[in-house]
């Protein structure tokens, strides 16, 4: 108890001594009034410190935080020019965005040119061409290459006579299989426990509904792929030629 009391008294005496020296150091009377206010607050804090410790223990850290925040806000207000790092980061972000835009544009023009070339050369009923560009580092720079080309032909409804119905149903493209598995998980989860007798029937129906894409007629597909391989140097494994299932056939 006595030790605590002596600690407290020593603090008060030290702060008052500090206040006296500050008063001596200050240059003129006008400033003295303002400095006296701040120093008086310090003395008040010191005298109140036992109560402050009783209520909340970390008064010093709180004061520290307040001061830090104040000085930080004062300095950030002065420096409004962005630093070099900030500028560099901005530049990087902008160039990334620009490259992305450029890649998109390249993809679009590539698709357009492939489509026009195909319709002109093979007379195939091309509906859309989807090219996927990927980036590879060649001698330090990122350069795009064509990783996959998907050619979609018009459905048999729209082009009378070109596609024979017999061959269509068997050729199921792998893409369609993937979609089908997901659909079963979502859509059939509630239906299967209700009536298990019609299970196989349901699955069959599902299969027929989901076969949106089938492989195109082999002759047309081969012609299209050879053209793309010759013209754009894409690997044959990465070319998919497909067409929508004829609606009247599946119903």
């Amino acid at each position, binding site marked *: 108890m006595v030790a605590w009391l002596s600690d407290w008294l020593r603090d008060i005496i*030290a702060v008052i001594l500090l206040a006296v*020296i500050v008063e001596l150091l200050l*240059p003129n009377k*006008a400033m003295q009034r303002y400095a006296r206010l701040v120093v008086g*607050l310090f003395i008040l804090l010191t005298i109140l410190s036992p109560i402050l410790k009783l209520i909340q223990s970390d008064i010093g850290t709180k*004061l520290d935080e307040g*001061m830090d925040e104040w000085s930080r806000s004062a300095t950030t207000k002065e420096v409004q020019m962005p630093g070099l790092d900030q500028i560099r980061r901005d530049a990087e972000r902008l160039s990334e965005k620009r490259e992305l835009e450029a890649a998109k544009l390249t993809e679009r023009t590539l698709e357009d040119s492939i489509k026009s070339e195909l319709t002109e050369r093979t007379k195939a009923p091309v509906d859309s061409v989807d090219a996927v560009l990927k980036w590879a580092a060649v001698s330090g720079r990122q350069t795009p290459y064509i990783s996959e080309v998907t050619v979609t032909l018009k459905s048999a409804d729209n082009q009378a006579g070109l596609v024979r119905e017999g061959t269509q149903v068997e050729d199921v493209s792998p893409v369609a299989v993937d979609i089908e598995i997901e659909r079963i998980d979502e859509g059939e989860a509630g239906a299967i426990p209700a009536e298990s007798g019609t299970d196989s029937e349901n699955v069959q129906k599902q299969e027929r509904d989901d076969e949106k894409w089938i492989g195109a007629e082999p002759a047309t597909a081969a012609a299209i792929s050879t053209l793309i391989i010759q013209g754009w140097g894409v690997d044959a494994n990465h070319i998919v030629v497909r067409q929508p299932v004829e609606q009247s056939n599946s119903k």
Partner: protein
Amino acid sequence: MEMIQIVGLGLMATVLILVVREQKPMFAFLLAAFTGLFIFLYVIGKIEIVISTLEDLASRSGIPSIYLKTVLKIIGIAYIAEFGAQIVRDAGQESIASKIEFAGKVFILVMAVPIISVIVETVIGLLPDGG
């Protein structure tokens, strides 16, 4: 000894200023400003001893270092504002000098804001929630 040097410098500067002022008031002002700056910087070096003593006192008695930091900032602001204001006053611009002093007072008051906020928070915490 140093005191005599400073007083001698001041007297010399004063005589020179009185001589020059008749012909070139501009040079008289410049001379006064530089003399003031020189004495200020010379004495600022000496004040380091006082500050180190204060730091010693603070560390030995266990006052939070933030108190001393704030107090030193206040003294610095007061001195710089006073010095600038006096130079401007010498040039005859009383109004600008008083503005500089005003800025100094404002900055000293801003120093008090964190302390006041801590005290206010404590007082609010002291009060019971219902009342």
